[in-house]
Each structure stands twice: as structure tokens, then as C-alpha cells.
């Protein structure tokens, strides 16, 4: 077309809005990364507890601590989202358009998940209720309905921030199907890490299938990141290449490499050593939990930092 290639600037000066530049997006920042992260872990640990039938992890007021931590994290994530809105008191309006908008789908899922999990865990506090708070295989029909619905909404919660970024056409780096996939995978890895930490810290054992699934998920996530970067780099768009540069060498690089080395490679190495020796000490699981939880946050934050706004012309 009839344009030149815009230059890249690190920080936008008001006057720069009148010249052709690629500039970092600033609308979504560290609070959004916290929102993505908290909701991803909160919903992920509920799903994994049901999938592996984990009934340990401690109790809080008679209710399972993993479910309570999940509830709190999703609620905190939702609160961060609401407080960051320009008009926080209108947040109910965000439930109005689930047909088109992923934010709307996510908001509905948040509320539905919170309501269903509160109902599910209540028998721990009020034993007279006519359903149980057991894991899926030991649960009665009412609880099973709660679990199935809550898991469905939890999966939407894990994946929807990725789709919100995917449809942000002003930031072409995010317009990859790998964005929601990676958000889902990082929600899972951090959830594995947190559950492993909570259960072993409580002096309980986890099935070996849990550790195998954990290391496989970490490896898949690592490979997905590589495929994602190759896929993005293959698109002939200078803005995407500038974003990759920012992610690998620029201001997002510290966060990104932390997420890969501390959040993925280190836990893989530690888990591999533990699986080889068939010993799973609580202290090691704590470190793996800390690493994966931090890695999940830093990956999301690095994605937001590497988001460069496309030039209106190129």
C-alpha cells in the first residue's frame, strides 16, 4: 500500500499519536495479568481435584480447602476485573451479550462458577443439606450436577481471557489460536502446582498419575510456547515481529524467560528427578508449586507487555 514501515517506540508521547508508530498497548496491564492468573488457577484447581478424585488438601470450616482457595481466587480475580473497569458499578451490564463477546461469556461463567461451587461446598459447613461435598465418583446425583456444571464454567473461565486477547485486532501478536490454548495450559500447570503443594503440605499422598499428568502438561506447554512463537514469526507482519522481539529481547523478556525457565523447565527437571526416584517430598512440591504459580503469572504479564498496537495503516 501507500505507506512506509512505522518505527517502534517504547513509550508513547502524546505527540507521537500523530506519527506512524507501533506503540505498546497500555490499557491492559499488571492488574489484568493478575485477573487472568487468579481466575485460571482458581477454576483449574477445582477441575483437577475432581478429575483426580483428590479429597485431601485440608479443611477450612469443614469444607475442602482446595475448593475454598479456588473460590477465593476466582472471586478475587473477578473483583480485580470489576475494579479496573471505567464504570465498576455497571459491571452487571457485562452479562448482556454472551452471543458475541467473550468478556460477557467469561463474566457469566464467573458468576455461575461461584454460585455452583458455593452450593457444592456448603454441606461441609451445613451437614443437614440434602447433598454431599464429595468428589465426583463418590458424590450423589445433585452434587454431580453441580460438579459437571461447575467444571464446564471453570473451563470457560480458564480459556476466555485468551479469547479476549485473540479478538483484539489492534494487537496482531495476540491474534493466534495459541493464545487461548496457552492461557488454558498455564492455568492447568499452575493448578497442578498449587494442588501438589497443598496436598503434600498437609501430609497426604497424591496418585502417581497426578505427577505424570503434571510433567506431561508442563512439557506440552513448553512445546506449545515454541510452536506459538514459530507460528507468530511465520506471519508476515512487522508489528508481530516487533512484538516477538519485545518478548524475547525487549522489556517483556525478563518476565517471559522467567516463565519459561522458572515456571516450566525447573519444575520439569524437579518432577523428572522425583519420578525417577519415586520420592515426592513436600518441600520439593512446595517449590514446584511456587515456580509454576509464578510462571503462570509472569507468562500472562509478558504477553500483555509484548502487545504492540498495530499501525492504523500497515
Amino acid at each position: 500500500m501507500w505507506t512506509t514501515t512505522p518505527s517502534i517506540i517504547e513509550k508513547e508521547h502524546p505527540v507521537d499519536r500523530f506519527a506512524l508508530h507501533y506503540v505498546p498497548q497500555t490499557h491492559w496491564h499488571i492488574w489484568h495479568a493478575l485477573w487472568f492468573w487468579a481466575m485460571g488457577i482458581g477454576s483449574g484447581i477445582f477441575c483437577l481435584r475432581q478429575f483426580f478424585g483428590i479429597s485431601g488438601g485440608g479443611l477450612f470450616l469443614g469444607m475442602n480447602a482446595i475448593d475454598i482457595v479456588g473460590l477465593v481466587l476466582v472471586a478475587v480475580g473477578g473483583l480485580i476485573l470489576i475494579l479496573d473497569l471505567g464504570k465498576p458499578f455497571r459491571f452487571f451490564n457485562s452479562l448482556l451479550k454472551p452471543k458475541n463477546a467473550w468478556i460477557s461469556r467469561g463474566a457469566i461463567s464467573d458468576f455461575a462458577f461461584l454460585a455452583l461451587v458455593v452450593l457444592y461446598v456448603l454441606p461441609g459447613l451445613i451437614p443437614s443439606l440434602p447433598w454431599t461435598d464429595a468428589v465426583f465418583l463418590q458424590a450423589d446425583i445433585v452434587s454431580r450436577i453441580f460438579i459437571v456444571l461447575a467444571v464446564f464454567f471453570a473451563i470457560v473461565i480458564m480459556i476466555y481471557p485468551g479469547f479476549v486477547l485473540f479478538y483484539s485486532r489492534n494487537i496482531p501478536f495476540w491474534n493466534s489460536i495459541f493464545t487461548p490454548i496457552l492461557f488454558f495450559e498455564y492455568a492447568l500447570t499452575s493448578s497442578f502446582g498449587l494442588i501438589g503443594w497443598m496436598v503434600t503440605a498437609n501430609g497426604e499422598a497424591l496418585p502417581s498419575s497426578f505427577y505424570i499428568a503434571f510433567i506431561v502438561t508442563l512439557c506440552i506447554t513448553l512445546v506449545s510456547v515454541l510452536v506459538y512463537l514459530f507460528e507468530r514469526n511465520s506471519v508476515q507482519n512487522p508489528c508481530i515481529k516487533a512484538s516477538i522481539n519485545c518478548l524475547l529481547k525487549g522489556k517483556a523478556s525478563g518476565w517471559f524467560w522467567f516463565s519459561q525457565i522458572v515456571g516450566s523447565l525447573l519444575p520439569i527437571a524437579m518432577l523428572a528427578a522425583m519420578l525417577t526416584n519415586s520420592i515426592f517430598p513436600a518441600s520439593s512440591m512446595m517449590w514446584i508449586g511456587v515456580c509454576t504459580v509464578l510462571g503462570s503469572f509472569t507468562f500472562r504479564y509478558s504477553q500483555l507487555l509484548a502487545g504492540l498496537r498495530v499501525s492504523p495503516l500497515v
Partner: protein
Amino acid sequence: MENNDKKKKKRWGMVIDLTRCVGCQTCAVGCKIKNNLADGLWWNRVITVGGDHIDTAGGTYKHPMRYSIPLNCQNCENPICVDVCPTGASYRREEDNLVLIDYDKCIGCRACVQACPYGVRIANIEEPRYEHCDVQLGSDEVTPRYQGVVEKCTFCVELIDQGLNPFCIDVCPERARYFGDLNDEDSDVSQLIRENPVETLHPQLGTNPNVYYIPPAKKKTRRTGLDFIR
């Protein structure tokens, strides 16, 4: 009957002749005054294409290149901003397909700002400030500027509804901007589109903008001073 309705339905559009635009920013400032835009907010910008800074040329020695491109809401036929809005605050007006924002519904989530590939939406997150002006600007018909919502060019909808042109059209001293009904074959804009090799921004995205540009490279280029030196 259906045909008649189709005929009656307007499709407002703009044609901007970049061979005439001199980058004087009058449309940008006019828009700011007309719509009472607070400090730092611009619904209409005139971007310099060329050098790294405003009003600087790019290119190489003997081949300098600089032109200006006014950029406001493209009023797309398939607006991505409307699709991603979780509240329905961003909508298309039935009678003329104008993309507008209902400030009473907007929650300020900024999804539309991130989605618009033309970067013309502005999040008015802070309380609007008018530090550089001590008089009230803007016409009475314009809605006041709200804190916490997203804003954008409305094609001066209140003027259109009175049968007038958007303000930027009338204030352009070079007559580089044209406005009219794209569904009316006799309108200025339809004729310009027929007679010139017009282009839209980011056609590959399928948004079908209703703002058309007559690009500078498609018309015979003027001789530069450097040609005479040689």
C-alpha cells in the same frame, strides 16, 4: 416495499483526498472544539506518514516522502468493536448504520479499544480535564464528556440528524474531506468513489470501512524542489 426501505436507508460515508490534505490539523482541532474533548483526547487525528515525528519527511536523499492522513472512526460495515462489546454499548444505528456508543451502558472495559484495528477509540478513564482552556467549548447538542467510558468520532451525529455535514468536513480549508450517503449514487462521495482509485484501510480484515481515501501515490506526483537542483 422492501426495495423502497432499502432505498431510504442511508449509509453515511466519507471520502478523504490525500492529494489535497496538507496536514494542517484543522479538522482535528475543529473536532476537539466542536465535541468539547478533554485534554489528551482526539477523535480525529491527522497522522504524518514519512518521518518518525509529526510533520517530518521520511524516505531517502532525492526521494523524500511525506503526506498526511486524517484518521477518525471508519464507521465499518462489519465493526469488530461492536462484536467484542460485552454490554451492547457499542452499536450500529438501524437507520443509517452509524457506529455509536451508548455512554450510559458502557462499563469502560476497553475491549473495543483493543479490538479496533484503526486505533480510533479512546478510553476516557480519568476525569475529563480542560487545563488549557478557560471557556466552555463544544456545542450544546453534544453529550458531555463522561469519565470512565470509551469515546470515538460520531460523524457529528447531531449535525447529521439536522441535515448538516460533520464539523471536520466544513472546516477543512483544503476541501480534502467529503461526506455523504454512499447509497445515493448521485452524492459527492459516490461520484468520487466511482471516478478515483480509492482505497480503504486494512481491507484484509473484512471490516468494510465507510471512509475511503484517495491515495497520494495514485495521482501524478508533483515535482519536488530537489528535481530542480539537479
